[in-house]
Every structure is written in structure tokens, then in C-alpha cells.
């Protein structure tokens, strides 16, 4: 039996959930609990999800723009943008629309449900570089969800940033997300512009395209070249028009960031489902600067 090959075990006895190169991390999920569920609209709810172990919760750190994979055993696993402030660490907020298998199930669960969280994954918005600059946050529909984390991070250090504008468009007033926070955002000296495509009779706000809001903002400044950063997130058609307008207003491509959505099955650069061309949205994104997006075929 001299030539019997030994069976090699590749896993360490104690995996380190904070070292991405640890093979034991691949299927490792942090036990977490849904601590509250707040309905935002008929379709979307805001879930407070807390990593159960206090030590793991405090060690969990992410940067605005990153996402987590949320797993419910036997139902599925899917990627979700983190909507909460990074200072809250492993006490996360995820805004989720009931649209697929897992999310429709989540729409029916109750407070106290145990879920698995892995991550954070992906790239983030360069908030340090943005300090000292004006910021444009432009979101369409669910696109406001990944914008909320960088917005909250800005609010925590409001004096470090210049003028901050949020331009947010939704299909109808009933679909507007985070309405309960608009007054609070305004109190932090944020210019909040909201527009809807179609309005009911009692809608006091504005109706029209988000590009009209942006046009008004651009008329107040001569050029965006020197002092502005922009974050854009929304449906492909919005990216197309908004990014074009910002470019024409002088905003350099490296100062314009987008967050892209794709199907994902692993979040770890293995399943290829999120590939754009052959760039992994989960590893090289979801946050891309506009230069990278221009370089990717079929990105927006």
C-alpha cells in the first residue's frame, strides 16, 4: 500500500471570516436576525438585519456602495445593496422589493426570522476623495437604495462636504421610498429634488423627468469640472441620459460613479452570472466610474 495517496484537507480548522483568501469562507454565512420590518411602499420594505454575535457584529465593516448576500435556507440567496450607514456596522438596513422567489418570501416573514449574511462584497464610492467637493446624488426608482448609504455617511460628516444635491425620480408618489426621512435630510442642508412620472390629483410636488431636475441644477453652476462628484443609480435609460448631461456639463468621467445591477449566484467572482462582457460586477463593481462603464460593452 506504499503508493496509496494521502487525502489532503485544504481547510484550516478555524476559518477566518475576515480573510477573503480563506477557502473556508466560501460558504460561510454570519448568523443574523431580522429585527424589524418597516413597509416603505406596497412593494418595498426596509429590513433591519442584525448579525447575532456581538463580536462579529462589531467587526463587520463595509463601505457605502457595497452589497451583502442574504440567505434563507431552502428558499435562496441573493445580493442586496446595503442602505444603512457604515457606522452601524453589522446592524444593517436592506431595502428589498418583493419581486422574485426569495424577496417574495421575505415579504411574508416576521420579525425574529433568522437569516445568513455574507460579505460585504464589491467596490464602493470613494467618499474620502469626495470630501471638500460638491456632491450630486441622482437616483431613479430603486436606484435610491444604494445611494442612501453614501448619503448617510455624508450626513454624519456634513461639514466635510460642500453642497449636496439629491435628485430622485419615481414613477408615482406612491412609489417614493424613504419619504419619512426627507425632512431630516433637508435639515442637514441637503437640496432634495423629487419628481414623479405620473401623479395623482393631490400630489403637490413636481411631475416630469429627472433630467429636468438635473438641468435646473446645472444652470446654477458654470462647470462641474473642478469641484463636483456625482453618483448615479437607476434604470439603464436614465444612466444613458444623465451621464451624457453630466459629461457635457464638464464632469470628468473619473468623478462620476454608477452602481450596476446584475444577476448573481455567488458574489465571489465564480458563477459568472453577473459578468458584463467578462468583468465581474460582484468583484470589479457594483460601483464603477463612468470611464470603466464606457469601456465595458453592454454595461448601460
Amino acid at each position: 500500500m506504499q503508493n496509496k495517496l494521502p487525502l489532503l484537507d485544504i481547510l484550516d480548522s478555524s476559518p477566518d471570516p475576515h480573510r477573503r483568501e480563506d477557502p473556508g469562507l466560501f460558504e460561510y454565512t454570519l448568523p443574523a436576525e431580522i429585527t424589524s420590518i418597516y413597509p416603505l411602499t406596497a412593494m418595498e420594505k426596509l429590513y433591519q438585519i442584525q448579525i447575532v454575535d456581538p463580536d462579529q457584529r462589531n467587526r463587520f465593516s463595509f463601505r457605502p456602495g457595497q452589497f451583502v448576500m442574504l440567505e434563507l435556507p431552502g428558499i435562496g440567496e441573493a445580493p442586496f445593496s446595503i442602505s444603512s450607514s457604515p457606522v452601524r456596522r453589522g446592524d444593517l438596513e436592506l431595502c428589498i422589493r418583493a419581486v422574485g422567489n426569495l424577496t417574495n418570501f421575505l415579504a411574508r416573514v416576521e420579525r425574529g426570522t433568522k437569516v445568513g449574511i455574507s460579505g460585504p462584497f464589491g467596490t464602493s464610492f470613494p467618499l474620502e476623495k469626495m470630501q471638500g467637493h460638491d456632491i450630486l446624488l441622482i437616483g431613479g426608482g430603486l436606484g435610491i437604495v444604494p445611494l442612501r448609504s453614501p448619503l448617510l455617511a455624508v450626513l454624519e460628516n456634513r461639514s466635510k462636504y460642500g453642497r449636496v444635491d439629491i435628485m430622485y425620480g419615481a414613477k408615482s408618489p406612491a412609489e417614493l421610498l424613504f419619504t419619512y426621512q426627507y425632512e431630516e435630510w433637508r435639515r442637514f442642508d441637503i437640496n432634495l429634488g423629487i419628481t414623479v412620472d405620473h401623479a395623482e390629483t393631490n400630489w403637490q410636488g413636481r411631475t416630469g423627468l429627472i433630467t429636468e431636475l438635473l438641468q435646473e441644477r446645472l444652470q446654477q453652476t458654470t462647470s462641474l469640472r473642478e469641484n463636483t462628484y456625482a453618483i448615479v443609480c437607476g434604470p439603464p435609460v436614465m444612466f444613458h441620459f444623465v451621464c451624457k448631461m453630466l459629461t457635457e456639463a464638464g464632469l470628468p468621467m473619473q468623478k462620476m460613479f454608477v452602481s450596476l445591477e446584475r444577476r448573481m449566484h455567488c458574489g465571489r467572482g465564480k458563477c459568472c452570472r453577473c459578468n458584463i462582457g467578462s468583468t465581474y460586477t460582484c468583484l470589479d463593481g457594483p460601483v464603477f466610474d463612468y470611464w470603466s462603464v464606457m469601456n465595458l460593452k453592454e454595461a448601460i
Partner: protein
Amino acid sequence: MIFKVFKKEELARLHELLAVNIMVGPVARGNDRNGKPLYDFEVVSDFAELALDYTQTVHSPKRFVLPYRETLSTFTLNPNGWEKQVDLNVRHPLVFFGMHACDINALNKLDLVLAKSTYPNPYYLGKRKNLFILGLSCNPEPQCFCRSMGTDSASHGFDLFLTDLGGKYFAEILSATAFDLLSQISCQEPSSKDHTLYKHLTNEKSKRYTTSVDTSDLTKILDLEFASKAWDYWGEKCLSCGTCANVCPTCYCYGVEEQIDLDLRHAGKTRSLHSCNLIDFAKVAGGHNFRPESATRLKYRYYHKHRGFVEAFEEPLCVGCGRCGAACLADITPPEVIASVRGKM
């Protein structure tokens, strides 16, 4: 690298020494409609079962490191929550007896993305680390374009590689285990005559390829020809069946599904090989499909293999084995697709 030569009769003895392990090798499995023999890799226990003069197996060896379906984890559910159990499904070391250079190179390419990258895949890594690979020289078949892809010979990723010199084998040794094995059979140091013969035969082999692909500047050409009509032509022919990814030794894209038992006490998570040509590959919840046409999906497959992978790892994700073209129900072959995108058809 250390070289040895041994007489062909000694190969059975080498097999016998390795047979204490579970062994996989090429076997003949019937004929195709033209009477040509069909081969596949299977677990073998008898030396006589091995078809070492095989041309090419229908399926690649990838299923032994990347099973088509695999349970990633199981869950025990209880009223207060659940527990997750992870099993890498690595049960025993595996000896591969008679792998051609293209398939060895395919595993080397899979290593780049699955083992040597951020978030290594432990299910793959565990099986890959427990392989002993005995490579075997081959003869170019009409569909082979491995020479164009630089994968007609293997320089690493095996334990032992044997080249047929006529009456004897020329052995390249890459591991201590392989060296130890050869010390148990009758082996000699290669003579200068053996060296000359080895060089002559490999040189002769390189002249026998009948299919080639022009890969020069291919990453740029693919960008230049992104809107080429050629993609529509092939997209029209493509049946979006995913057979190409099934037989490909380097296709690794997958999907994950979870199942729950009817008693609600147990659940499982299964990974299954997917294909970027299947219609739901890039479809997201809510119904939007980022690649709804078969032409964009087929184009993406070439983009991933010949552009993106090159950008990430400086080599294409294709070894030129030609299995995809041979298996394609619509007769789509990479040499023809690439030539047409280059405008040479």
C-alpha cells in the same frame, strides 16, 4: 524537470502500482453514427479497460473536479432558526491515468479563476489538490486547434507526462510522488538518441494540425467587431442549448438553487453547471434580461473566453480541444466563428 525513459511493457506495472487508489482513465464507449469510436473518462479498475490510444473523450475531465451538480451545503431547520453544514465532497484522492495536454492545460486555466483568485472555491480546490495526473501524448485530430491556443503541450499541472517514442515512453516528472513511483519500475536515464527522437516527434506533431485560429490581436478585434453582422449570423444558427458549455473543459459558470424538504426540517443548496447560452443566464428578478437574444449570448461566450479572461489572466479560456464544435448541433465551431468575426469568411 527530470526525465526518464521506460519500455512500454512497464506501463502495466505502473498502473498496478497506482491501482491501490481510485483511478480514472479513458475508455471506449460504443461508436458514433459514422462508426468512429466514442471515448469518455470513467473510473477504471483494470488496465485492459483503458483505451490509451484514444483520440478525444466526448466530455472533458472537469466533472471530476467540478461536478455538473453538487450539494454545497445542507441545513437543519428548527423552530428557533437553522444550522448550516458544509461538506466539500472530497472523499478520496483520484489518479488520472492518461490525460492529454489540452485537458491538463484546461485544469491549469480553471485553477487561475477558481483556486488562485480572491475567494478561492474550496469545492474545486479540495478535489484538485487530491489529483494525481499522468499525462499522455496525443495525435492531432481534425477538430484540434490547441496549437493556436498554445496548449498543445503542458509544462505544469501534472505529476508525470508520457510521450510515446515507439517502443518506449519518454517521461517528464514533476512531483516527488511520480519520481518515487518510477523508481519502482524499470527505468533508464534518457540517452541523447532519446532526446533527439523526442524533439523530432514533437516537431513532427506540430506539422500535423489541420485546423488553426488566428489569435493575434484578438482582444482588440473582438472590441472592434462588437457590432459585427457575424454575431447575428451565428446567433441565428445557435439553438441556445448549452451543449458547448457542457463538453467544454474550461466552462465553469454555474447557478445555485435551494430546496426544502416537505417536512420543513431540512434544506439543501445545490450548485449546477449553467451555460451562458441558456436564455435565463442574465435574467434578473422582475423579468429584465440583459442578454435576451441568442446572438448576444453567443457573443458573450466568445468575449468571456477570448477577451475578458485574457485581460484578467493573460491567456484565453480555451484550450482548442474542439469538443464544443464537435458536439454542436448547429455545427458552430470556434475557428469558423473567429475567422468570420475577423472578416475572413
